[in-house]
Structures are given as C-alpha cells and as structure tokens.
C-alpha cells in the first residue's frame, strides 16, 4: 500500500472556535487515511490556531484532503508540504533506569552520540530528552531499548515551519480585511 505514498505534513490555520479539530479529523476518517501525528497550538497570529498534521498519502489524495479542510467555514488556510519544504522538529522523552545507566557507560555514550540531553536524574530514574526528526528519535529509542534500560518512552507530534519568510496566513488575512474594509 505504501509504495506510492509519502508522508505529507499539513499546516492548517483556523479560527479559535470549538469543534474545528473534529471537522478536520473527519475529513481524514471519511477517506480512511490515518493521521500519523497531530499538534495543535496557538499560532503567531492572535485568535488563530495552527494544526500540524502528518499523514501517509499520495499527492492526489492529499490535495483533495487539503481542499476539503480549507472548505470548512472557520478554517483560514490549509496547505500540504513534503519534508523538504519544511523545517521540522519532534521531541522524544525517555525515562530510563538510573541503576542501569550507572552500570553501563555505553548508555551515556549513546545519549551523547545522538545529541540528546539528560534533563533530570534521581536515584530511580533518569529523564532523557531529544529533539530531532522522527527517525533519529526512534533510532535512539531502539538503541536504548537494546540496553534494557527504558521504563517509558514517548514521542511528540511534529511541529514545523515553512522554509519561506513569514506565515503566508497573515498576508492572506490582511488582504481579506482590506478587501472588506
């Protein structure tokens, strides 16, 4: 199934009103496309929320999904991107056994090699955090897990900014307001 599919990132901007997330996810559900990751937060524009959604799809389908999402009344803009067009970060959190970390110096070396940082240590557990792309974060998990030291592991949804200069959405909104003005 995945041969001609790619991981696309959708950046969606909406008004901050209840129920939009439901409307957006319903567009995916109706087409049986799974959302791989999802991050929602306030954007740099007051009153506008930003959704960063990743999903495996082919281009035809992701175009249709993007248009259907943008068609929702309170959605301001929706665009889809491939990884090359974005600056992307995810975060991984790893809760490790402090005993195991002290026992085996390879664990610390691995953490350093991946550029991850230790953000808390107590006699029971050690929390490691890593920023990066999905593959690196998963790779670190696999390496640590091989040492049998992982209590818990979690990975955030993706956040991304476009490689362009500013959020085009502000320009769009300005034009809309002027036009109405």
């Amino acid at each position, binding site marked *: 199934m995945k041969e001609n599919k790619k991981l696309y990132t959708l950046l969606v901007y909406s008004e901050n009103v209840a129920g939009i997330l439901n409307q957006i996810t*319903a567009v995916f559900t109706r087409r049986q496309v799974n959302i791989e990751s999802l991050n929602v937060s306030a954007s740099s524009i007051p009153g506008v929320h930003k959704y960063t959604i990743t999903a495996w799809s082919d281009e035809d389908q992701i175009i*249709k999904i993007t248009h259907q999402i943008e068609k929702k*009344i309170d959605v301001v803009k929706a665009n889809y991107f491939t990884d090359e067009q974005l600056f992307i970060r995810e975060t991984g959190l790893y809760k490790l056994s402090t005993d195991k970390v002290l026992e085996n110096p390879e664990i610390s070396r691995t953490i350093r090699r991946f550029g991850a940082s230790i953000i808390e240590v107590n006699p029971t557990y050690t929390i490691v955090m890593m920023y990066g792309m999905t593959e690196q974060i998963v790779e670190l998990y696999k390496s640590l897990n091989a040492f049998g030291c992982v209590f818990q592991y979690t990975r955030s949804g993706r956040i991304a900014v476009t490689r362009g200069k500013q959020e085009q959405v502000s320009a769009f909104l300005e034009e809309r307001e002027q036009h109405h003005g």
Partner: protein
Amino acid sequence: MRALQAEGVKTIFGYPGGSIMPVYDALFDYTRGEKKCFDHILVRHEQGATHAAEGYARVSGEVGVALVTSGPGVTNTLTGIADAMLDSTPIVVIAGQVPISALGTDAFQEVDLVGVAQPISKWSYQIRHAEDVAWAVSRAFYIARTGRPGPVVLDFAKNAQVEEIDWEPKKVDFIRSYVPYPKLDDEAVRQAAELINNAKKPLALVGQGVELGNAQEELKAFLEKADIPAGRTMLGLSALPSNHPLNVGMLGMHGNYAVNLKEQECDVLIAIGMRFSDRVTGNTKTYARQAKIIHLDIDRSEIDKNVKTDVAVVGDCKVSLPALTALLNQNSHEEWRESFKELDAMERTKVIEPAIHPKEGPLLMGEVVNAVAEQAQDDAVLVTDVGQNQLFATRYFKYHHKRSICTSGGLGTMGYGMPAAIGATFGAPNRQVCCFMGDGGFQMCIEELGTIMEQKAPVKMILMNNHYLGNVRQWQDMFWMRRKSFTKMMNPCYELIAQGYGIAYQAVTDRKDLAAAVEKMLKTDGPFILECAILEEDNVLPMTPPGMSVNDMKLEI
C-alpha cells in the same frame, strides 16, 4: 423573530416541541394580526419540514427555513440536511436544545446536534446565550446562501431562547476565513478560451451551478457565441430550456443516448457548475479520456475531485461565463452538432416513442409524464420523488423556465417528493407544481398529505403505481438474476386515503382516459392525486450499467 425578519424570511416550515416552545410562543404573535410577518407551515413530520424548505429554496432562490424541537425532532431532519448538502440547497434548520446547564447530562430529548450535523452541513453552531442570536442567525443565512449554497444548522439552547437582552441587530456579510466567491484567474480564463476557440467538437455539461449562480442568460450567450452543444445534469435541467437549439439532452446513467456517447468523442469538454457525479461519469477511468477538460466551478474542492481537469476556472459562473465568452470567437460547429442527430433518432425510435406513445398494454410512466408535460403551463415546476418515477419524469418533462426542477439528485432520498412539492407551492405560489411519485416514495412521507390538506397546497400529485419498488426491481432483473427480493409491495387503497384527507382524486387505468384526467387535475383548484395504474415491470432506458463506461449505454435490455 427579529433576526429572522432581518434576513427576509417569509415562510417557516416547522413542528413544535418542548425545547423550542419559547420560539413558538413568540412566533404566535408574528404570524397573525399587526405583527404578522411570517407564514408558519405546520408539517406532519420534521423530515417533511426540511424537504419543504428545500423545495421552497430550489424554486425561489431564497433560503428555506425549518424550525423544529430538540432530540427526535432534529434527528428527523438529518435526512433533509444531508440531502441539501449534497444538492447545494440553501436551508437553515433551527432546532431547540436543552438548556446549557443540562447539556451532556443525557437530558430528555437531548442529542449532540452540532456533532451529528457537522459532516452533513455547511456550518453548524450552538447558540448558548441570547446575545449570540442576532450574530448567529445572520451568519447562518449568509453562509447558507453565499458561495456554493448549503444547509446550516442552528442548535438553539432553551436558556438562550428565554434570556432577555437589549436587541441589537447584527449583519454578517463577511467572514475572514470564508471566501464564497473566489477571484477569477485571468490566465485560466485565457487558457480555457484558447482551448474552446481551437475545439472542433466542443461539448458543454451544464449543472445546477448555473441556476444557483443565476447565470442562465450568461450560459446562453456563452453557448451561442461559440455554437457549443450542451447536455444538462439532472439538477441542471432547467438551466437551459428544453427547446433551446443547443440543448442536447440530459446527462447521466439514464440520460440521453447521444450526449452520453458524445462525451467519449468530443475534443473539449466544458463542465459548468457540475461535479462529475458518478451517475454522470460512469467509470471515470474511461470517461472522456480523449478530451481536454475545462471545469468551471465556484467550489475549488470540486476541481480534480472526480475527473482530472486540464483547465480549472474557479469562480462564480455569473462572472466567469461572461469573462470567458468575451474571449471566444464567434464559431459554428454545425457538422458536430448534426452528428448527434443520428444517435438521437436511434433513441427516439427504440426508447422514446415506445415509452411516450405506446400502442397497447398497461399505462407506462413515460406516457404519463409526457401527457402532463403536454398540458402543463410553460413555467410549471417539476418535483419528483426518487426511483423510476424520477428518471422518467426528468427525461420526459419539458423545461421552459429557470428553477423548474426539484429532485433529490445526490442523496437520492425517497420521500422527498411530496414535502418538497409543498415547499415549491410556497416558493412559487403562481406556478403549477407537478409532483411525480411512485407507490414506494408516496408512502415514505405520506403523512404530509395532512399538510397539503390543511394548507390547501395546490400540489398536483401524480402517483405512478406499479406495485413495485420499480428501480430496485429493474436492477434485480438486470443484475441479480431476476430475484425480486422484497420489491413487490402491497398497497393501500389510495382513493380512500385521498378521501380521508379530503383531496381530489382520480384513477387512470386506461390510456384513452389519460389526457382528460390530466386536464381535470391541472384545472382543479388546489391539490389533486392522479393515480395511474402502471405496467408492473416497466424499465427505464437507456441505461449505463453501474461501473461501466458511458459508451456502454444500452438502448434495450
């Protein structure tokens, strides 16, 4: 009430209940005496209210309004909302809701309306406080009527219905995140014009968008300048008059033979305000592959959704058609147009003549429709239910006037006909409304006979009774080894039913009585039921079998 008044509402189709009582109480004063500004039509089932609102909207171009209570009142409207969504019909459904203090408690007649209506409406919103009313109602009408129209749902919490505030009118005519009329791309228009100017065999496909955009005249100017033959979708039938020389018939599974085959031969296909529904395209993998495709639509998400286009002109056809026409060369495609005639003649001999002028045997649906079409006024409105009655009626009715057809195209809602026809009589009070139904669909909203009785709504009901769910029976015969699984139906005595409601009734079983009976129906003031005893196993032809290519269309089976 004042918010509705501000939106120019004149007619409300509704049904009262617990959670909407404060609104109904206020309505009482606004429907009589000095303050009168609305007609309230009491329907017999909430589904009927939404279909009536749809019929009203379709013929009048105004927003139809349905007013219902919470819980079952509003779940009964969901079919109508979904229907209006698929057929881009502007309606506003206002439903009661339990007070916000009771939300989420599974209170009596509570249902998560915004949740259930969201995927089948253009916008749905819960009014939680009285101060939201003016804004929400104005926004609802603005959204319903602008851009690509559609249904809007307002979920009106009971506390908000009774809270007292100082009335401040609010007019919504701008939503920054919503662009109802996209700006025309001049380059796309230029490319489209170039394709059309160089076309040898252009073919236009006309949809309801032309009616919704009120661009019937702009369409004619466009077609006439470049001499382009045009097929119409079922919902777009009255966008171009039947007798227009460039009209080449109806598209789709049971449309006209020539235009379906010519879709596979044209070199440029120009789709105007239509959405390439599967009933029109058949198998999209083989559909019009030889042609360059130009798609004019107001809704960008329709572009490339079902059929890949070469040039997309996104915008209101009231604007895009004249812009395109201005760049067209005066042209003539006589040879191409003439080439339709041979296929038309085949269809006429094999299908049309036997259907509308049969010599013997029981009555056929085609001849009944034809008999009504021959006597109906030029601006008569055709309303259909769904099934064979719909296919025969849309094929053989004649359209001379814009906004002359109400039919459930996308959702295919049986039971739509009767209530939609009621709505049409209010939306176009001076026009004849002829409603064709089968015995299946007639019984699906049969309760609305009560509304017709009470309102004396002049619906001319043509009940084409074949004692079958005919369309499904036809498919069973064609594709399911003639196994007629639950399509034969025992019917009540419709004459007694008509009597019970005090509605004029006549039965026709014999061909020689048909014309006189139709005349009597059309001359009778008020509602009329004309029951026609139809050949039990009549088939709608031609037909493109489901999933096949449009050029596999069959004239006979």
